[in-house]
């Protein structure tokens, strides 16, 4: 059976917003002008490099048994830093479990991200302090929370936008489609930021969609745009504009950041079972950090001294993070009963007291 081409993904070639080619050539896009100072470009380079180093250290910590699992952002740094740096302080972000780069932009101490993966807590930062919500593991759930939050912002007449992150796989979930509908119907000030890293664990994009994901937006009644997810400048420019539109009462936008998951899905995954090495090699040539570095060299925005300084800052960050990870205390067993309810709960108190009494029977036995 052959399928009519007009029904397939090839209907019209997808457009990709790009401001920096993989070779580090700056190109212009009529809809997305971007002027950055030298310091701003340097800042982006620093962000990209530090989060990659942080992420690699977390992978190492998992290998050494210090973390139970880790979801690496390798390859997706530009999508996360570009969009993360587009946010203003009052904007709110809702992440999945892989948004370590966005967390970095929101000022969340990287060590706080480790708690969940080490198994000492389920989250561990105050979302309101950073305007960065907790990681959400159930695929797609957070998209509805983000829309609801944006509806609140709308009712408060506040100057803020909400951004929500999710993956290509997540676009299949009912929750995500409901979020699109709500956002559209209520004209919610929300930006849907989909990192299409081509894979949902072992399932390639074709298992989720037959059209480019950004085109789904039009069916829901708002604009969609595909951006080169490995181009930090384009991600910054496109997200800035979508956020500005949201703040301006123009409603939602879907951004599809076209990128690639360079690592395993998580540290427990073995991608050699389902994907070929040549794909990885092709994407290596589009590396987000290398292209920015090439651009900066070519345009004399930084010299070797600058890059060396960033590398050594990255090493220091990694060392510090490792140290503080190892120092993270195991929670007290009685913490099981903490924060389950805000108001008094007698049944739980009874259980807690019984458990404390039970534990005390082991005192002196080194349990």
């Amino acid at each position, binding site marked *: 059976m052959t399928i009519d081409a007009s029904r397939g993904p090839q209907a019209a070639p997808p457009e990709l917003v790009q401001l920096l080619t993989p070779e580090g050539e700056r190109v212009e896009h009529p809809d997305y002008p971007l002027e950055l100072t030298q310091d701003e470009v340097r800042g982006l380079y620093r962000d990209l490099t530090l989060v990659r180093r942080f992420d690699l250290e977390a992978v190492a910590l998992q290998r050494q048994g210090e973390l*139970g699992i880790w979801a690496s952002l390798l390859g997706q740094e530009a999508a996360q830093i570009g969009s993360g740096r587009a946010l203003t302080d009052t904007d709110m972000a809702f992440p999945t479990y892989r948004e370590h780069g966005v967390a970095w932009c929101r000022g969340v101490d990287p060590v706080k991200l480790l708690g969940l993966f080490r*198994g000492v807590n389920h989250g561990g930062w105050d979302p309101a302090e950073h305007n960065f919500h907790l990681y959400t593991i*159930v695929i797609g759930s957070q998209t509805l929370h983000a829309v609801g939050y944006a509806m609140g912002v709308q009712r408060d007449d506040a100057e803020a936008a909400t951004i929500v992150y999710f993956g290509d796989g997540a676009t299949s*979930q009912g929750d995500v489609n409901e979020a699109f509908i709500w956002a559209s119907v209520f004209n919610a000030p929300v930006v849907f930021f989909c990192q299409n890293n081509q894979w949902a664990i072992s399932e390639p994009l074709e*298992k*989720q969609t037959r059209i480019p994901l950004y085109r789904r937006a039009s069916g829901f009644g708002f604009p969609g745009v595909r951006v080169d997810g490995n181009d930090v400048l384009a991600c910054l420019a496109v997200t800035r504009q979508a956020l500005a539109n949201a703040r301006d009462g123009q409603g939602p936008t879907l951004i599809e950041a076209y990128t690639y998951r360079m690592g395993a899905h998580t540290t427990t995954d073995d991608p050699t079972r*389902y994907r070929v090495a040549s794909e990885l090699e092709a994407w290596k040539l589009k590396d987000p950090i290398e292209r920015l570095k090439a651009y900066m060299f070519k345009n004399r925005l930084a010299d070797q001294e600058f890059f060396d300084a960033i590398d050594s800052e990255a090493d220091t960050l990694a060392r510090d993070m490792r140290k503080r990870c190892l120092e993270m205390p195991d929670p007290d*067993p009685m*913490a*099981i009963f903490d924060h389950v309810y805000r108001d008094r709960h007698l049944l739980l108190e009874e259980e807690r007291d019984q458990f404390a009494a039970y534990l005390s029977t082991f005192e002196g036995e080194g349990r």
Partner: protein
Amino acid sequence: MTTLSLSKAINEGLRKALEDDPKVLVMGEDVGKLGGVFRVTDGLQKDFGEDRVIDTPLAESGIIGTAIGLALRGYRPVCEIQFDGFVFPAADQIITQLAKMPLRSLGAIKLPVVVRIPCGGGIGAVEHHSESPEAYFTHTGGLRVVACSNPADAYTMIQQAIRSDDPVIFFEPKRRYWDKADVDVEAPGLPLEAAKVVREGRDVTMLAYGPMVKTCLEAAIAAEEDGRSLEVIDLRSLNPLDTATITGSVRRTGRCVVVHEAPVFNGFGAELAARITESCFYHLEAPVLRVGGFSTPYPPSRLEEHYLPDLDRVLDTVDRSLAF
């Protein structure tokens, strides 16, 4: 007789079912090329093709909803839910449709759908990967609910579940996936709804299913050293429940301890305790006691050893039972 891990035993059971009946389908997230995150479906897509072993889009409601449609068309879908905590997006389809459509049709419709769910904790996982949601489903009329505890049972039970014309929720104890045992692939096995006395004893009847059967067997061995004789029953089927086997045992021992990972409060043990109290009232020397999780969400993994019933907590409860 071959030695199989529990995950491999289910894999072999699925393979047999796919071979025996062309209407059997396997579907879920990552079940194809990857063979599932626990490799339970390893190699099946290669051998039976993409039309029978289906990598679905990432949506649990979609998996169960379309499985219902396939069943209406005469297929027997076996759905994999990747982890216990991700069955909830499918809860609507399971509870409002899968469980109720046959009745709604006055018997005209059958829905032979199996929902496989790796369940329970003990593997050091992050949130939503260690839950024991069985009571939500045993509470729903129209569903059969079973839990395997060992490779031999797993091999036969999965095939029986697939042959059943009713929807079956099939729990697999994920921390026991790697446990190995001899499996006689020719043995017919017990009926799906039968409980099994896995260790005979005189003093206390231990009721368990899934991951806690092994814990109870270890407790029985430890108790024996103290001169206590524990009888361990693997319930295998939670709905229906093999009340005859349970009652027979408790009437002999006069004591009963229920062990499960799920919270004790409103857990499956509550049903067991109530039933046993009713059916064995004059034989009981002690109230039916329960060991299980607390009335809290499942804790972060570094605390799970405290949350999960272990040898000490099980034996402590046995002591309390014997002290009455």
